[in-house]
């Protein structure tokens, strides 16, 4: 049954997902080309110096990519469910409601893990062409909060779409916006190294928010 839910979710998401992947590959490729150009037009040592001591992020174009992918995957997956209250069909499937809802989130999460890993591998390869592993490590440390933000936006999209009341949607939206904005607070690379475990735990706990929205959908849909 889970495989079948996976099939349905995939049918909903696939084009958006592949679109996100294409965009991601494009952005990683663009970072690669930019880097090549910067190194071509400046001396490599001054580029290193600029990156290490001026804290220039050559990968800053990547910043909003995970969030954007999380958002569009969330929309693609949950918007069709609330059109015509179609979620009723899903909840009517012969499984426990909470399991049905969490299955959806789990599938989206796994797909995001795959696409983010894939893009990070790409970004890592690009980095290692030009720089030693120290710079890659700091890149990963710095990109991680953006990735976590992608999951947050995805989980919030799930809770937001499934929610039936606008007042609650606005509440979740505003709080989540404030929360996500923290992930883009930038004080130089590695500045999230201490906070990221807690941020990650908070982000993961948000995956359960869909259950409250789902409960409210079930209890009060008209």
């Amino acid at each position, binding site marked *: 049954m889970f495989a079948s839910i996976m099939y349905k979710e995939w049918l909903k998401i696939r084009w958006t997902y592949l679109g996100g992947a294409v965009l991601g590959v494009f952005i990683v490729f663009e970072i690669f080309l930019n880097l090549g150009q910067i190194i071509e037009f400046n001396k490599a040592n001054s580029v290193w110096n600029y990156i290490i001591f001026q804290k220039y992020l050559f990968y800053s174009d990547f910043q909003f990519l995970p969030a954007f992918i999380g958002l569009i995957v969330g929309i693609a997956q949950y918007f069709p469910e609330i059109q015509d209250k179609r979620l009723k069909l899903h909840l009517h499937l012969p499984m426990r409601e909470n399991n049905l809802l969490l299955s959806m989130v789990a599938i989206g999460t796994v797909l995001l893990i795959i696409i983010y890993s894939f893009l990070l591998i790409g970004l890592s390869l690009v980095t290692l062409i030009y720089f030693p592993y120290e710079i890659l490590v700091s890149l990963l440390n710095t990109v991680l909060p953006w990735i976590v933000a992608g999951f947050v936006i995805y989980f919030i999209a799930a809770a937001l779409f499934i929610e039936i009341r606008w007042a609650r949607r606005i*509440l979740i939206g505003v709080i989540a916006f404030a929360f996500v904005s923290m992930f883009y607070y930038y004080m130089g690379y590695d500045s999230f190294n201490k906070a990221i475990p807690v941020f990650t735990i908070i982000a993961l706990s*948000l995956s359960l928010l869909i259950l*409250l929205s789902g409960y409210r959908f079930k209890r009060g849909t008209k």
Partner: protein
Amino acid sequence: MLVKTSRNILILFVIFVLAIFVPDFYWKIFEKNIRAPFVLYSPVIHDFIISKFDDKTMVRMDNEGNLLTRDEYEELEPLFFYRQIVMTGKMPDSLDGMEIDIQELRRNNFSYRIKPDAIEEPFIQLYPLLESKSGRAKLEMPDEFIRLQNRCEFINCESNEVVEDLSETFSKAFTDIGFKFPAAKIFGNPTTRKPFDEGYFITDSAGDLFHLKRVKNKPYLKKVNRPNGVNVKYIVVTENERREFYAILVSEASKIYLISYNDYEFINTPIEDYDYRVHELMMRGNILYRSFTFSSDDMIRMVVTDREYNKIDQYDEEWISRENTSAGKFSKMVFPFTLSIIDAKEPFINFYFLFSDTRALIGIFISLIIAVILYLRKKIKLKFIWIDYIVILLTGIFGLIAVLLVRYEE
């Protein structure tokens, strides 16, 4: 059960965000600008002169509190305001019996600042080792960066590959002198915009301090003998043309030393009560004196010494910190705690809690009463909402707002 968990997560999430943003908004509205006074030591009257903001206007005064005009004020510190004083032609011929030569005066003025957030600031551990005797007038960025992990590795920036011969020569020097890899901390100024290069001061994994330079592509590596009990916390390499001291060193115990050009001798400074975790330190020097100023958000201290670092005088001032203004006291009642992800004294984003004290009970009590009244009016059974009361008990107004926004579900 899971649905309840889901609601509790949402409540905690709302509280988390409120505890960050509500106090932030509160202070955006009520915060008064409190700026530390600016203190100088006048070589004319041998006393401190102060300028500070009284609301929005700059007030200048001497240490007795007599107001000074701007001209009077600047004329009392001709070494600091020498450009202005030279322009108005008021520069005295001599001060403290020393003849004033503008060139000398300018050459002897210096200042260094150590901010608490700079001390732990993360850097990628790759450093350009400049050639300090290139024979060129200007410094140049080297083609390699060094890595001090298992050995001293030179990595060519262009090829991103290790340069073996250089790495071997330098690594050998490191092992010969007893350096324990990997390096713990590396201090220096990786820039070409300085008059000359003194390389890096490096602590090894055993805590010992070394001085590394690249001289004609060969290692210059000296072990710096530390006085007993002085462990390095932070070093500012000065690279000042007077070549009096290589560096300012802050020890783990928050003592300030200068590493002299005279065989790396540690010069003690008479600075007490400085704490690198909270204070911003400013060291100034001129042709006559040295001064060390450190300040936090409610105090400033300035210690003036002669050029041999013997204490001459000390200035202390305290003022009401933000926390102790009326808005601050009120906030202690309203917010049982506040949370910020940034702290001016820290280089990392983290969760900086600031807890209130017993005053918080007032706000918690009022929040609880409001919740009880609202819940009683709606005739909601305690078994649905006992957890709400606990949340309010622990988080006060944040909890109240959160449980009202995220209503209980039957």
